[in-house]
């Protein structure tokens, strides 16, 4: 199936998504990688407000290259999501609904996704120029000292993504290879 999805996402619509579906995502997406996740969790530990509203939000695991004059951002493909596994359940329990990255997730993350009706969408790893084409605006939110890992607010239009893990825990990284091996040749 192909879905058009807007952020903030309708929770009922997120539940319709199945691993393997295609999604064109539009709206606001925040960037955060390892270091920013660590700081967000530390802020939550101290009872402080995180740098952006987590409830209903979408986070993209990306550290873009510097923007040339003609674009708002440089190459902007996903980084490996597994490095965020230690932090993601905390963010999901605080309201995060959409995670965007590449590669498999831990059982703890899948459990937290099921608990909160969240989805994990895959961008094409290594396709930095292609993924950047759907980003219309980028502005710094905080933690500029982290360089490429700083938190940025992106406005995306029709970002081409694939549902990697759905809100019921179905995992394309398990289902896809199995389906190919049973029917592929």
């Amino acid at each position, binding site marked *: 199936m192909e879905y058009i999805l807007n952020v903030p996402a309708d929770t009922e619509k997120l539940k319709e998504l199945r691993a393997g579906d295609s999604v064109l995502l539009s709206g606001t997406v925040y960037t955060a990688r390892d270091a920013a996740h660590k700081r967000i969790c530390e802020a939550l530990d101290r009872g402080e407000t995180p740098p952006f509203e987590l409830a209903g939000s979408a986070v993209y695991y*990306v550290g873009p290259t510097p923007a*040339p004059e003609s674009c708002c951002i440089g*190459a902007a*493909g996903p980084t*490996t999501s597994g490095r965020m596994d230690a932090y993601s359940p905390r963010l999901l329990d605080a309201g995060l609904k959409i995670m965007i990255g590449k590669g*498999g997730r831990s059982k703890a993350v899948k459990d937290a996704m099921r608990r909160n009706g969240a989805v994990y969408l895959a961008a*094409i*790893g290594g*396709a930095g120029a292609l993924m950047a084409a759907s980003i219309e605006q980028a502005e710094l939110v905080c933690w500029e000292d982290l360089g490429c890992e700083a938190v940025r607010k992106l406005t995306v239009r029709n970002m081409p993504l694939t549902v990697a893990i759905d809100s019921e825990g179905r995992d394309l990284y398990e289902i896809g290879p199995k389906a190919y091996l049973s029917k592929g040749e």
Partner: protein
Amino acid sequence: MRNIDAGLIKKTVAQLCIKANRQLPPDVLEAIINAEKNEPWPEARRILGLLSDNVALAAEKCLPICQDTGMACVFVELGQDVHIEGDLEKAINEGVRLGYDEGLLRKSVVGDPLRRVNTGDNTPALISLHLTQGDKLRIIVMPKGFGSENMSALKMLKPSDGVEGVKKFVLDTVNAAGANPCPPIVVGVGIGGSFDKAAYLAKKALLRPLNEPNKDEYYAGLEKELLDGINATGIGPQGFGGRTTALGLAIETMPTHVAGLPVAVNISCHATRRASAEL
């Protein structure tokens, strides 16, 4: 004795950093296009097509192919009849600094592995220096991303493990890597030497063009067998399933100790980037 100015080395390294990050080597692009033609699984074919589109888009917009513009691995083949006017290591690092700045490449290096503060200019480069015959200087820049580097592994096998042990370790490493290293991957395998040399051989294997099999027939056969094995895992492009899990595999070897069989597997992604120049 031939003199080469360090300033020329700096300028060359800067140009190679930019070129390597914006243009995929022809052999790698050709391997992606061929894989698309031979891929039986529709979703996998679609992704391989998008990878070619990405390469074209990067060239058109002067953007890096991938946002992880890597650590700059710089291989220097220095002819013993060359005299460098200036400081070679400094020139290489200044070249990396200049190239990553002017090319709008990402600065991804932290100065200390545990205290983790970004150096801000992508230095230091990872330099491998080799003395060769003659009066030429050859420089190869390979920007190495860490999505794939993180999935690499090394094992000290026993001689009794033999070639079967090597095959199992390579396949286990690729299976454990799964979708993380941005498949279709390129695999460099180093066999022999010592703990450190095996890792170096695996990295060096990634420099060999994908359409050049090992010159030793025995290892050329082993390369083909391992590549076929990897492409039977079903992992596929991006780990979503399909035939094309790897675009190529190269083995480099070295004599080793009677008691040992070191094996290293260095994984690279579909954006296996390298550019070279001779001065």
